[in-house]
């Protein structure tokens, strides 16, 4: 998992092991929508890192990562936006 995280708030995200689909961690488990995703503060990272390791062990998800949020609470980087919203081109 990415260390040296800079921001203040994050979502925990991953790909579903079976489908590869992008998912976010919510109170009720993993969801493909960010709507109910738990907002994680910088000092809670360790706790959620443990959760992600546990979830990986359960063979539900792979490639867990923290997605940084901007001040307004939106996903910050372009890569994470594309991960969430899908490709930006028509096919």
């Amino acid at each position, binding site marked *: 998992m990415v260390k040296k995280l800079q921001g203040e708030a994050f979502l925990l995200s991953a*790909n579903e*092991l*079976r*489908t*590869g*689909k*992008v998912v976010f961690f919510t109170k009720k488990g993993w969801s493909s929508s960010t709507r109910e995703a738990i907002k994680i503060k910088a000092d809670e990272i360790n706790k959620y890192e443990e959760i992600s390791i546990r979830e*990986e*062990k*359960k*063979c539900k998800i*792979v*490639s867990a990562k923290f997605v940084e949020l901007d001040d307004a609470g939106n996903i*910050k*980087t*372009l*890569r994470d936006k*594309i*991960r969430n919203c*899908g*490709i*930006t*081109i*028509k*096919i």
Partner: protein
Amino acid sequence: MYKYSDTDKKIIASRVKQFENQVNRRLEGKLTEEEFKPLRLMNGLYLQLHAYMLRVAIPYGELSSKQLRKLAFIADKYDRGYGHFTTRQNIQFNWPKLPDVPEILNELSLVEMHAIQTSGNCIRNISSDHLAGLTINEIEDPRPWCEIIRKWSTFHPEFSFLPRKFKIAVIGCDEDRAAMLVHDIGIRIIKRHCQVGFEIFVGGGQGRTPIIAKKIKNFLPKKDILNYLEAILTTYNQEGRRDNIYKARIKILVQELGIERFKSLVEENFSKLSNKELEIDKKSIEEIFQYFRLPPLKSSSDKIPLEDNQEYKNWIKQNVIPHKIKGFSIVQISLKEPKKPPGDATSNQMKALAKFSEDFSFSEIRVTHEQNLVLPHVPNKELFNLWSQLKKENLATPNLGLITDTICCPGMDYCALATARSIPISQKISNHFNNYCKQKEIGNLKIKISGCINACGHHHVGNIGILGLDRRGEEFYQITLGGSAKEDAAIGEIVGPSFSETDLIDAIEKILNTYKKHKKNKGEDFLSVFRRIGIKEFKKDLYDNFTEKS
């Protein structure tokens, strides 16, 4: 075309079973992701931004209509109705699901295809000239040699856990259409004193350290090819760096040791470890060559139909080249229609092409490293007919070798490693230069675009190379000039500070203006001008009245 023997069939089928076993163990938690990853990679399965991605090999770029139909079927049933042809004669599916992959591999095996060693730190799919066997100045068809090497390298027990990936290309003439000199090993068939053999190059590559391969052998007799490859791989497997992934390719080893020292290690392994059983005798060479004979083409004096249709004429001029058999043509199909990601083909296009290849080209299709397709043996008299049908499928874009025939990697739209998007850039270029006459005036020009320094889009060897960067969260594009992937291979030079997406087209226009200004005659293409005048002139024009960004 090559046909699987019973042994081939059994080996591929047993690999499918083995991978099914591995997927099940992964899903049950008996394999960790760390352990599963190299195994899935060896079967061409990546995990990308939003999904898994399966890379299927098209060995030496050759496809039958049946195989292409199967690819269309897979795109429809397991994916989203399209596939992406890559720069190493593979096709990528962007949306497969892990539990489906063994089934996909099984479907592929039914048409003698696989995804073996299309990824991972092993010897990858062997690539070749897409015009192999079709041109007059070829010394010998490279495809049989690719097949010989494909077999030897498949599940090689010793070379499946190399320091890093390993790419080999083979060509059969002086012209290099396979970017042979930017491969880990490049092989060129040559003739010396009436004897045909190989010239061997080693240590080429792109990525963050682009290097043109160096010659390690002036002439290698045919029978020794596998023993010599084995000697190179032995040296690399033993000596290649494993402490730093960025220094693990053979190019770094060759660079650090120097070609002479590297060569002496290889020669020692060659002389001490060569295995009689790896020598290839005349008979088995002949057997393999049987598979690659031309279909029964009767030469004729048939001319290309003249039709009073400008689009058709443009297409003939741009995309059609003569076949070595009189009366036939090689038709190049551009997968660079405006507005579409370069190299993408829909399942409907694949099905249509499968049909066209049956009707017009002896059921054969080729895949090029420039992300286009080829119908290799089309009778001249059918060209207008074929063109009309291609046009209906949006497969008749007349831009081969022109500025809109860009090579482009998936970039940040798909790729987890990207620093910027690349497909939208290529789309901007094709929209801006859409007009055929305008393109023709610019002439032969290769633009190659990568979404990060890994250089999957070959930007280092583009006449104009574009590399996507991340500048504090914003996409920026660095331009290199003067690269070439051909026999005169060269790594492009960085022209200066990078450009935002908005300023990029303007910058390309300026570069083209410099070119036009210095062009001596109509025939002098971009690369020739660049080589004559150097990068300075371009810099001067590009940055003079441009607000320079640091």
